[in-house]
């Protein structure tokens, strides 16, 4: 059992990689979701087409394929990424495509009345969005964003395919070195679950914050 501490540290090393991928992937996904989501409802047709194309391609193909393209095909065009960069990019772009639809849906769910009031008050397009529409759309996005973040955490395991030693990858190593199947897999099951609980708790906090003052409205 003494050896097990060493193996556990190995898995924790992998957990750290998983956490970094999740945090950076979520940050990228969030930015991309807003850009593409707003792009989908932009007043300029070419922007809408571009956003739609991105969303459909990244929702319509597997994240494995996307990761392989970013890690193996992109270098052929002269853009070489480290496994970590490729992983973050694939995860962020994939989950960002789902997030974009969440952003779009939430903005369209804000009652038309509100938009009309901003026109009557002569706000500019950006002011309408920034001060009236987004503050009301954000609370609608958050529950789904929470789901997306947890999906992203679970999807991080695919990066083991491009030789990044995330938690799942390390568990496989431990299993092959020790011949013990139960312990490593129970360990990562618990850690994944703890991480997703953590994400849920953080999202809950943010949700309470942004919906403050809106009680009785929805």
């Amino acid at each position, binding site marked *: 059992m003494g050896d097990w501490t060493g193996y556990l540290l190995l898995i924790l090393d992998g957990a750290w990689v998983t956490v970094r991928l999740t945090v950076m992937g979520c940050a990228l996904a969030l930015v991309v979701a807003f850009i593409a989501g707003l792009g989908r409802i932009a007043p300029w047709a070419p922007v809408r087409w571009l956003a739609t194309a991105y969303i459909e391609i990244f929702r319509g193909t597997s994240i494995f394929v996307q990761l392989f393209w970013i890690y193996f095909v992109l270098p052929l065009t002269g853009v070489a990424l480290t496994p970590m960069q490729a992983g973050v990019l694939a995860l962020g772009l994939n989950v960002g495509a789902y997030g974009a639809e969440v952003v779009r849906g939430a903005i369209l769910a804000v009652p038309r*009345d*509100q938009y*009309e*009031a901003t*026109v*009557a*008050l*002569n*706000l*500019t*397009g950006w*002011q309408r969005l920034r*001060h*009236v529409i987004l*503050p*009301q759309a954000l609370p609608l996005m958050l529950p789904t964003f929470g789901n997306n973040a947890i999906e992203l955490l679970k999807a991080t395991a695919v990066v083991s395919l491009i030789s990044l030693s995330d938690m799942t990858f390390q568990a496989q190593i431990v299993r092959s070195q020790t011949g013990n199947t139960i312990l490593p897999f129970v360990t990562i099951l618990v850690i994944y679950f703890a991480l997703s609980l953590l994400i849920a708790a953080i999202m809950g906090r943010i949700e309470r914050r942004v919906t403050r*003052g*809106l*009680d*009785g*409205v929805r």
Partner: protein
Amino acid sequence: MIVHQFNAAGSKARQDLDDAPIIRIHDLRKSFGSLTVIDGLSFEVHRGEKLALIGPSGSGKTTILRMLMTLETISGGRIEVCGEPLYHMSRNGAEVPADEAHLHEMRRHIGMVFQHFNLFPHKSVIDNITLAPMLTQGVARADAERQARELLEMVGLADKEASMPSQLSGGQKQRVAIARALALKPEIMLFDEVTSALDPELVEEVLEVMKRLAAETDMTMLLVTHEMGFAREFADRVLFFDRGRICEQGTPEQIFTNPAQDRTRTFLRKIIAAGHRV
């Protein structure tokens, strides 16, 4: 006055400008798909005039206000506000459809109060009122808040500045909405069935505010309403709409006591039968 003494010609020009209609609508058309809502409508509104637009639902009254507020596009014809075309602009000497910048410029003349208040639920009463002056006119927060308090005082809600809209009654919400529209100091105010969504006992408090407004300011006001008693008291001129056209117009006295058209009479009879006061 000083101008008058020293420059009679300039004063005359100034006088003409004041007499020119503040709103001029010519051969206006609006259709939604195959449904024609406004059909070759023309009328003018003079500065300071209080106009009541009445008529059966679907007669196009609200659509006219919405077109003036640029919430709908027009299908044909022309609207001029303060001497300038609303939906047209000149570029290189030619008249072209207005772009967003032109609409933004023109909207400064006009304010609107909606049937369903449309307050911003995530902002307090005072923030609802100060938002637009601060963003669109560059008013400093302190000045915007001072003005907002004066307006709240005027609509009788001085104690509600920190409340959220969800904590207010319908009548209070509508009074805040009026204060919010007034904060931008528009020359023209549009009131679209502002008491229709209110419980009967809350109607009076909103009408009181509007009466005071009509009496104390020289703002041009266009009012779409089903409150005939109020229209009669409030308006200088009443336009009766039917099927996208003005069927009859005149002073409240003419329209309500001695309408010339059968359709006006029928409409007023139905309204009275439905329990509205005339």
